[in-house]
């Protein structure tokens, strides 16, 4: 079913606090037609659990102003307001549109409650980078990190230096989520979402397939550090299309079977992001990018705020209780 975010309506049937967050039972409509949840579209009321839920929403007249210095020295400002109701509704709406199992209303069984969609906001996230000077691509990728940042923005980025076909910066991202609440449930599907607030392309590369953002395993610990620049696995969990196919707002990457297997049902799921060139080890200036002195390509997105905003990165997981063995009764 095609979901129109602009006409989405949500009814909160019930809501209650749970350990680490809030649980919501909700119905939803798109273009006036009720959405049937679940694999077969028979679910009337879906259960959503949000861990470490957001409470802040963007508002240009808001009374909460967050400022930080971007890595290029520019001051970045976000203006927000505290609005618990709106923050939850934005969270639900962006989660609903990302779900795999959305159907029209034709098979809804009135009152039927569904499985669970859980949203996990980061327990830790960070930008990690290496800043070099007139460095080859191979040396940049192999270098130790010399920067990390946990404030407002993170990004994936590649920047050329002033020497032809050499490089100056690579940015990568870590995002850790406490997914222990999944427990023994079976995972049906999952996606990772990050909220982009700015795209930059000074090297004519955003139409290249290598400008995709690749979701991979993070192997860093929970303490942010420069050395986390190298703390990534080698298995791909999913990727976006080319940069010019993305828009400002949440960008969603569906987890493949490797990604689903990597979700830690009793602890922390650790995810990372790199540009396609970086993950696939393809030298940008010979694989879709044009050398420009000091030129860069970058996707900038919000990191998790301490209090939680409706634009924080999130891991959304659809799961269901593990079924017991089928029992057959013979009646004579």
């Amino acid at each position, binding site marked *: 079913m095609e979901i129109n975010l*602009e006409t989405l309506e949500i*009814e909160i049937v019930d*809501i209650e606090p749970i*350990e680490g967050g809030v649980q919501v039972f909700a119905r939803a409509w798109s273009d006036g037609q009720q959405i049937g949840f679940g694999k077969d579209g028979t679910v009337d009321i879906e259960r959503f659990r949000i861990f470490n839920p957001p*409470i802040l929403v963007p508002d240009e007249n808001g009374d909460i102003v967050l400022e930080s210095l971007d890595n290029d020295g520019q001051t970045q400002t976000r203006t927000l307001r505290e609005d618990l109701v709106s923050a939850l*509704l934005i969270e639900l709406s962006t989660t609903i549109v990302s779900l795999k199992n959305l159907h029209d209303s034709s098979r809804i069984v009135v009152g039927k409650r569904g499985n669970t969609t859980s949203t996990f906001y980061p327990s830790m996230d960070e930008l990690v980078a290496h800043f070099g000077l007139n460095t080859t691509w191979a040396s940049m990728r192999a270098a130790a990190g010399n920067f990390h940042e946990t404030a407002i923005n993170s990004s994936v980025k590649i920047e050329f230096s002033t020497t032809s076909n050499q490089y100056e910066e690579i940015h990568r991202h870590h995002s850790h989520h406490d997914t222990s609440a999944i427990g023994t449930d079976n995972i049906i599907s999952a996606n990772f979402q990050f909220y982009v607030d700015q795209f930059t392309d000074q090297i004519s590369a955003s139409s290249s397939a290598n400008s995709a953002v690749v979701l991979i395993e993070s192997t860093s610990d929970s303490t942010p550090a420069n050395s986390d620049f190298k703390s990534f696995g080698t298995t791909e969990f999913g990727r976006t299309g080319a940069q010019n196919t993305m828009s400002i707002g949440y960008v969603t990457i569906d987890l493949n079977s490797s990604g689903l297997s990597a979700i830690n049902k009793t602890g922390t799921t650790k995810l990372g992001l790199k540009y396609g060139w970086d993950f696939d080890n393809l030298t940008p200036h010979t694989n879709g990018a044009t050398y420009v002195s000091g030129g860069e390509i970058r996707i900038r997105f919000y990191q998790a705020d301490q*209090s939680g905003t409706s634009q924080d990165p999130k891991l959304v997981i659809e799961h269901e209780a593990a079924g017991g063995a089928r029992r057959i009764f013979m009646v004579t």
Partner: protein
Amino acid sequence: MEKLSDAKIKAAEAKLRGKTVRGAIENLEAKEKAGIKGVAIANAFKTASKKKRYRFDKATKTWK
């Protein structure tokens, strides 16, 4: 996932009393912060209208 006990909810609400949520959670451990936000959000919807159909209003940029 178990529901919070009544005692824990009362403790969380006591911490919120007289403060904004943001102010109340700033100095707390991550797990405690998350739990308190859950209590506050549930209470906010009980104060608003739980059964209402909410829709995003583009003009005011709020859910109504």
